[in-house]
């Protein structure tokens, strides 16, 4: 499925379904934060150093 179609489909979901996705996004974000990966950028090619583990 193309990205625009996927986005359109996401917009058409019910509020219930959207909230469940938000909660999953939050769970994923918290898992990433707990794993120590936060601070490393992926979008810019992943070349930034992980800040958290310095020192």
């Amino acid at each position: 499925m193309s990205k625009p179609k996927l986005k359109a489909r996401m917009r058409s979901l019910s509020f219930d379904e959207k909230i469940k996705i938000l909660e999953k996004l939050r769970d994923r974000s918290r898992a990433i934060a707990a794993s120590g990966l936060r601070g490393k950028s992926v979008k810019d090619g992943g070349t930034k150093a992980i800040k958290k583990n310095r020192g």
Partner: protein
Amino acid sequence: MPLGHLHGLVHNAGRENTPVKATLEAINQMQTDGLIGKYAIGGAVGATFYLEPAATVDLDIFVMLPSAGGLLTLAPVYAYLKAHGGVEQDEYIVLDGWPVQFLPPGSDLEMEAIEKAVATELEGVSTRVMTPEHLAAIALRTGRAKDHNRVLQFVEHDAIDGRKLQIILARHGLTSKWKQFEQKYLAGNS
């Protein structure tokens, strides 16, 4: 008994509530018990009602507070929720893993947004969400990059009624701000 019911909701104990549903049930209970007046979901979660879901930090609840001697304070709300498992964290109260920010209306625009909010349901729980036009107007006035991005999403996905938006903007002195936004982000888009 209201307190026991609220405790179970906040801790998600013995129920298959999703966190946001449990949070809304707790908020509705506070409304029933008179700690808060009308409320409406705003911010990113409010926008999600009309747009695609996107990761967000918190749940913004714009809330009318009952005035006691002219002083408006969230202290009773926080005390009520903390007594039943909510954890105060900076400007949030964390309920079942969701940071919730209670926002008394700071302007006529926000008061109007609460009054005109759309009644809806989440997993059978009654709640109210700001209209897309009010969400866009508040975002325009707040004016951060992410707020402008939200307004753009509303515009690009035809999620707002342009006429209604212009009426709201005019009523709250935001027409010139809209023109600046339009010039910066929408110029050339017919």
